[in-house]
């Protein structure tokens, strides 16, 4: 086989593979959208084709019945406050770890957590949360989110700070800035790329978290988006037109964010993994 033939064959195989996987990804998404746009009667008569008539009412009904406005607000509060704390605490803790060699033990202390599955902490944590009256509170959930997300954030920040020249901070300290002012005014602004990685990794995992809120936040009014959808599905377990409408509404914010910040998302996912 000549080189040209080889190139041609490998390119065709690649194109075929990409096409095949695209179809595989698209079928469930297509079914989801089409189902949400049908009436139950239309769905029964014509389960896989285009809707007979576009039924936007499913979205309005799902939005109201699942109380999605409240659920999205709850999820937003939890995700945003947790990420704010993860960034602040993570960047601060990483600074001495990156700059001085005698804190290696602390670095290992954080890293050890990456090995331990959350399942190991989950039941004693339940006891602790009860003892501290943190079950069914936002700050309780936020503290757990921060605790389990910090090791990765500290790890990424430490690696990044190590790569920054020390001249700037030395100059600031000579100019009489205290360590805190120096950190926030000189170092922190330089951390933007890794901050964006940390934010994106955690937006994905915390916004979509199901397990931790299921365990520690069972109260109805406090439900996050994921729990609201889970409950809604339980109530309407026959009517897939409504369920799919609710599902679409629940994934829309994340997909919009992704399309807006695609570059950062890709860098965040690949960067977080490669350095991890």
């Amino acid at each position, binding site marked *: 086989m000549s080189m040209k033939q080889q190139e041609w064959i490998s390119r065709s195989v690649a194109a075929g593979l990409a096409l095949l996987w695209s179809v595989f990804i698209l079928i469930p998404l297509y079914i989801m959208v089409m189902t949400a746009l049908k009436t139950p009667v239309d769905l029964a008569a014509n389960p896989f084709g285009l809707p007979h008539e576009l039924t936007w009412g499913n979205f309005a009904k799902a939005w109201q019945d699942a109380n999605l406005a409240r659920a999205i607000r709850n999820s937003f509060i939890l995700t945003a406050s947790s990420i704010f704390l993860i960034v602040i605490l993570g960047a601060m803790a990483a600074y001495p770890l990156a700059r001085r060699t005698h804190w290696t033990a602390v670095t290992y202390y954080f890293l050890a957590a990456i090995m331990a599955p959350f*399942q190991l902490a989950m039941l004693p944590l339940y006891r602790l949360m009860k003892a501290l009256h943190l079950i069914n509170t936002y700050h309780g959930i936020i503290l757990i989110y921060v605790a389990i997300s910090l090791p990765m954030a500290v790890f990424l920040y430490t690696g990044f700070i190590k790569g920054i020249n020390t001249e700037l901070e030395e100059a600031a300290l000579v100019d009489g800035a205290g360590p805190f002012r120096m950190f926030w005014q000189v170092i922190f602004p330089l951390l933007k790329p890794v901050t964006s990685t940390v934010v994106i990794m955690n937006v994905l995992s915390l916004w979509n978290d199901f397990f931790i809120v299921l365990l520690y936040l069972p109260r109805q009014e406090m439900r996050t988006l994921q729990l609201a959808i889970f409950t809604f599905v339980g109530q309407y377990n026959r009517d897939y037109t409504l369920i799919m409408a609710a599902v679409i509404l629940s994934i829309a914010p994340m997909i919009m964010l992704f399309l807006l910040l695609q570059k950062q998302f890709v860098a965040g996912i690949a960067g977080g993994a490669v350095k991890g």
Partner: protein
Amino acid sequence: MSALPPFLSKSARRTLGYDILFMLPALLVFTIFFIYPVLTSFPLSLTKWNGISPDYKFVGMRNFVRILSDRHFWQALENTFQYAILVTLLQNVIGLSLALAVTSKAHRPVRTLFLVPPLLSSIALGMIWSYMYRPDGAINGLLTLAGLENWTQNWLGDPNLALYALVVTNIWKWTGMSMIIYLAAILAIPQEIQEAASIDGVGVWQRFRHITFPLIAPAFTINIVLSMIGSLKVFDIIFIMTQGGPGRATESLTTYIFKRAFDAHKFGYAIAVAVVMFVIIMTLSLIQMRYLTRREVRA
């Protein structure tokens, strides 16, 4: 700060003090809400405790001895392994193949599409795929349409198929993530190496074997470890789609722990199972990392 050793100068002591102030908030939250529960799980695994009452009874190794003869535990372990091996294998083979297939800039829209499933929450994923798998769902519908009517199945209702159905759902969601990690590594390979090899008449497969594959070894390690650990810890999609059923056909270690604790109120026993799971995951990841990083160095 008088407790500090006297050989430190005043400014060194000052730095040390500030260092501790910088690390303290993170250390406190992390220690109280993660390390402390992890550590207390070891003594609690030696107790009989219902999770509600404040007192528990020390029973020594009894929970662990009981695990040895608990056939539901062994079934959950077997399911979990089967699931993890299949997911790791498929996700990496397909993820790497896709990454190799979409390296040019013209493929951007396709890459975007492949990254949509990883954005979906477990609930969304579970609902979409439960619907696909229903006896009157889209998969059977498509099979009928293609004239393969006798291939139709009750995918989630058949104990011989349910676990594989969940594996497919898992790779539908996560393969895009593996792909993007491989892709980042492939795109980091200097173009000149590939071109020079191509001019020298090195074939496509040889180029992959001797240039691309060795150079993306770190991405390979990360992807294998991530998908392996991730699938050993699988909980959400099983809990949402099958609750471990039919029967115990899709019971995983995590769903088993959850049920022992919250349905059967055997917290002590559930924690003992979690400890066993931790030991298994840790051993496997250490072996994997050692083996795979050694391969990296050689390559």
